[in-house]
């Protein structure tokens, strides 16, 4: 026997209580790890998006549209190297549960704007040539088992065709990958020419937003200001920002993801703190005479306090490790599904380390009070209890 086996034995004195507490801690850390990863999935693109690109969106609402002619005016500005446009298509593939973003784009110009997206040149040629053509991220195609040549039916929810039909059918002419794993950008890309031709006449010439490549990334802020100034008094004023900022603003349409995650996690950890503290306090009270016996045998005040604190640490770290371990398995399992609409979904090492650090901190906070009480325990008084 050693000190660890004494601590272990004490920890499982009341097995049901310990397992329930362990389970609570496990759930808390499972939530922590997954929610932090979800927040990372939303924030991941924000961190990596290039600052040499600006996104020019409608000033007042992301659902507004802007005239495609803005592109030509922007190209005249000093510091603007190239401009492409994109539009939110919406729509459902085989029901509402198979969500993935879809964008009508100018095939060649779009891929030139995003050199990190790699497509076979022949497939890009076909995408440009075939007005019904569409290309999908490889990950998305794998997920749905699509092959080049497949017909992909999309039921429009925002966009219907000029003849009133909601059914859009595209031909998959290629797939693309990303050289940046964290910027998979899983858009299903549609040939804009077909979209433009088929949609109702009154919306022709309107697009959702522009992506602008600036000549000098250091002057991106100035260029953004120039663009917004240019359209300030037009029918469609703009709001320009780096892609990172634009994505952040988009995420904030739902709410402040980070704040929401932190709010949920704070509530979870506060509850766990109370629950575990209650367990440890109860466990301490139940064996005050036993701790006194340890002191009688010659264990010092500090060593008895350390035993109590170590139990708390072990409980929290064990629960935390189990929760984090399950989160690793779960995130690996669901990563491909999540990645189809949220970009990357990678469990970061820093999240795991933060989880263990929080587990240790929780153990110390929860165990400190019983440990101090154990240290102060007077043998004679405690033996009478």
């Amino acid at each position, binding site marked *: *026997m*050693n*000190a660890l*086996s*004494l601590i272990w*034995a*004490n920890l*499982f*004195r009341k097995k049901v209580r310990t397992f329930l507490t362990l389970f609570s801690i496990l759930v808390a850390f499972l939530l922590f790890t997954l929610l932090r990863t979800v927040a990372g999935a939303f924030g991941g693109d924000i961190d990596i998006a290039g600052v040499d690109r600006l996104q020019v969106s409608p000033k007042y609402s992301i659902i507004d549209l802007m005239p495609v002619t803005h592109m030509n005016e922007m190209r005249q500005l000093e510091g603007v190297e190239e401009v492409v446009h994109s539009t939110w298509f919406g729509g459902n593939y085989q029901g509402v549960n198979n969500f993935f973003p879809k964008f009508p784009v100018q095939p060649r110009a779009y891929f030139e704007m995003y050199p990190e997206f790699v497509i076979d040149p022949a497939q890009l040629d076909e995408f440009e040539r075939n007005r019904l053509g569409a290309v999908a991220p490889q990950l998305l195609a794998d997920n749905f088992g699509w092959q080049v040549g497949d017909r992909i039916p999309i039921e429009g929810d925002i966009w219907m065709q000029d003849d009133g039909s909601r059914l859009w059918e595209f031909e998959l002419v290629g797939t693309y990958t990303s050289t940046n794993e964290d910027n998979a950008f899983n858009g299903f890309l549609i040939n804009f020419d077909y979209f433009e031709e088929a949609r109702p006449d009154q919306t022709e010439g309107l697009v959702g937003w522009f992506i602008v490549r600036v000549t000098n990334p250091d002057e991106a802020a100035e260029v953004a200001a120039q663009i917004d100034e240019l359209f300030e008094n037009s029918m469609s004023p703009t709001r320009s920002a780096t892609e990172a900022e634009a994505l952040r603003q988009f995420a904030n349409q739902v709410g402040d993801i980070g704040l929401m995650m932190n709010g949920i996690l704070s509530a979870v950890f506060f509850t766990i703190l109370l629950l575990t503290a209650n367990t440890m306090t109860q466990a301490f009270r139940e064996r005050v*005479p*036993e701790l006194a*016996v*340890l*002191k*009688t*045998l*010659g*264990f*010092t*005040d*500090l060593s008895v306090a350390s035993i109590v604190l170590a139990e708390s640490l072990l409980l929290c770290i064990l629960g935390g490790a189990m929760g984090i371990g399950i989160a690793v398995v779960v995130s690996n399992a669901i990563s491909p599904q999540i990645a189809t609409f949220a970009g990357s979904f990678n469990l970061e090492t820093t999240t795991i380390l933060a989880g263990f650090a929080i587990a240790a901190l929780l153990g110390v906070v929860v165990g400190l009070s019983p440990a101090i009480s154990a240290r102060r325990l007077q*043998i*004679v008084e405690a*033996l009478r209890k």
Partner: protein
Amino acid sequence: MAIVELSNVAKKFTKGKEVVEVLDQIDLEVEDGDFLALMGPSGSGKTTLLNLIGGIDQPTAGSIKVAGQELNGLSSKKLAKWRSENIGFIFQFYNLLPVLNAQRNVELPLLLTKLSGKQRQNNAAVALEIVGLADRAKHKPGELSGGQQQRVAIARAIVADPKILVCDEPTGDLDRDTADEILSLLELLNTEHGKTIIMVTHDPKAATHAKHTLHLDKGRLVQEVA
């Protein structure tokens, strides 16, 4: 040679505004190898005196020297170390750790030594052998009778080979036959293993196993019975 020397020891408790004198003007010497029974009515101060000798309580006044060590003024840490090396405790209600089996309960005091895990196991096995419980080593206290639990407690008390055993009503929770077995075991430890034993008891029959008996009444030693 005296292994325990108490000089003018007093112990007072404050209970609210009332000061209770538990022990007063105690002078006592216990010879090395003695087996002393401390008797007296409830509240006479027997257990308090035992606690002072065992170094788990401090006197209000007076001097206590046990196993060559003056206990007054020792820090809590030094006192703990001293206890682990010199005193074995045996309680009325055994005070074993219910989560550990007999073997591990006996090993507990050895965690404070520098012995290896293997040596600790061997020593604990020897101690259990001495008290006749080698075959119950893997049983937890809840699976043992009262007499067996007290034997485990005795094994725990002797495993670190202390000079002195302090026993607080060691047979108080046992039936007559079992009590006799435990007392015989204590006698054996005294005569064969040279342990100095100081035992608090209410039971005159238990006291007959001791070499000497002292009586306490209202916190004072009143007579010695040969």
